[in-house]
């Protein structure tokens, strides 16, 4: 699992405080805690409160690059912020998070991914919104994959996000998303990666943690290989490590959790 640590988000109070007071040590600590917990990448999101998203994104990226060399996921829906983020990310590998699966957007974002040698997340959202059935989800994913190829972005750099919906209001969507995922893998050889953000799933639900933990296990069976999550959520980490083991993605040993941690540690 390519774990994209979600904690560097202005939505969290400590990060917001770090941004407001320009206190690098707060940002460094949050970043390093995620890396220590096993993150393979760090999602960088200025949060809803920022009034200068572009400057804040650049400052966050520069700050995080001071303490780690892992992949930075530039999380913004704004094209100019994305571009500024790409220019600021001079040391670390980049994941662009994200573009919608709309033709016009893809024609703008894919060339950027190519130019900056970046990986890119394509959301299963088209002009009509979030598709509600398997076929239109796969269709949107196919467009993302086709546009990547057209613009010369290797499939190994493409991450498709099928968009997970809250279980308490869109219960039937979970099954549809999981079924779509297993078809994403047939789009190309090698197939694109599949990434999800699971914070949506348990929104407002009482068993939030259990829902997401169960979902990620089912996701692994259907080809999920990346997730935007809190790397410090040990139960969630252990759940997918175990699921991947049972899918023979790692060789069993009694201490397989420790073996995973030792093999996926990016602490410098």
């Amino acid at each position, binding site marked *: 699992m390519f774990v994209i640590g979600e904690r560097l988000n202005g939505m969290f109070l400590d990060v917001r405080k770090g941004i407001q007071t320009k206190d690098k040590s707060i940002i460094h600590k949050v970043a390093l805690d995620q890396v220590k917990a096993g993150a393979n990448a760090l999602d960088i999101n200025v949060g809803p409160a920022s009034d200068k998203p572009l400057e804040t994104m650049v400052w966050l990226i520069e700050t995080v690059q001071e303490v780690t060399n892992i992949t930075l996921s530039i999380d913004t829906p704004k094209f100019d912020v994305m571009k500024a983020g790409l220019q600021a990310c001079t040391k670390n590998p980049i994941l662009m998070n994200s573009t919608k699966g709309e033709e016009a957007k893809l024609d703008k974002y894919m060339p950027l991914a190519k130019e900056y040698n970046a990986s890119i997340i394509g959301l299963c959202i088209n002009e009509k919104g979030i598709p509600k059935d398997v076929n239109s989800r796969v269709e949107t994913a196919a467009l993302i994959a086709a546009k990547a190829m057209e613009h010369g972005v290797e499939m190994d750099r493409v991450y498709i996000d099928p968009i997970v919906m809250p279980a308490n209001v869109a219960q039937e969507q979970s099954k549809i998303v999981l079924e779509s995922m297993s078809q994403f893998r047939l789009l190309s050889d090698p197939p694109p990666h599949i990434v999800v953000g699971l914070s949506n799933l348990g929104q407002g639900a009482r068993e939030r943690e259990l829902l997401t933990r169960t979902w990620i296990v089912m996701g692994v069976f259907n080809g999920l290989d990346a997730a935007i999550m809190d790397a410090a959520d040990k139960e969630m980490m252990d759940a997918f490590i175990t699921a991947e083991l049972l899918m023979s993605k790692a060789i*069993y040993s009694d201490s397989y959790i420790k*073996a995973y941690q030792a093999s996926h540690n990016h602490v410098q």
Partner: protein
Amino acid sequence: MESVVEKWTTKVNTITLGATKQMGGTREKTVTVGGSSTLPYLNFEGAWPNPPAIAIEMWDREPDGWPEPLADAYADVWKDPAKWAKRAVEYGAEMLCVTLKGTHPDFGNRSPDEAAGVVKDVLKAVGVPLIIWGSGDFNKDNDVMPRVSEAAKGENCLLGTAVEKNYKTLTASCLADGHKIIGESPLDINIAKQVNILISEMGFKLEDIVIFPATGALGYGMEYSYSIMERGRTAGLSGDRMLAQPVICTVGQESWRVKEARGSEKDFPTWGDLKKRGPLWEATCAATLMQAGGEIVVMRHPDAVKSFKSLLREFTA
């Protein structure tokens, strides 16, 4: 035509054995193995920087039951470890594997001090790096190996073996005296991984471990060692740090146990000259396990060493 190239993500660890004067030891040279970024000799896919190293096996006591071709090579020296060591180096050993068979309760029950004496004699007699292998009796090894480890302190030897049920004493000794360690598992990939985790949990560097997956000779379980070595290696090249260690194979010991290598011409008249057949069996086993990713090959017969070496030269030419 486009060639199909596998993209591995990680490399096998590189390990250097032996310590020269500058490094705090007394060895004339060191031996480096590992470091490959692909399976053996797939040069179009990645690098395979260090060819396998050949160690020759010797004992701390006179062996019993070694067949005639081996007796021809060593019988005049095998009562004297220092002389045996020199002979093995003459035969082309890049390292020596000193097996402390004589310390086993059933094979002489020699004391830890006697074993340490043998190791010191060998260190004095030759300048190649040493592998030091215990008798396999847990209790006795836990008495003998710390003493031996101390006697060879600073020489950067490879000590074995640590197993799932008995690894703490040897790991502690290797840590204290600056040696590398062999983690042994009984033809079981899951246990091979577990042993490495256990050793590393004691603060031992993963880069200082060599995997001994147990060796099977041609005709006697070789397919098991081969597939386990291959599976471990592909996992190691795919990012599993617990299986990214170089591998040691006890080719001589296993080959000379099988009847095809040791059976007399009288008993098997159609099998041909034993003096050729035995070494050929051993060299064939070595050549096969090298292709599964074996980095340190422990051998016995000088002719087998010679033909395996010439094969390596052809491969690397």
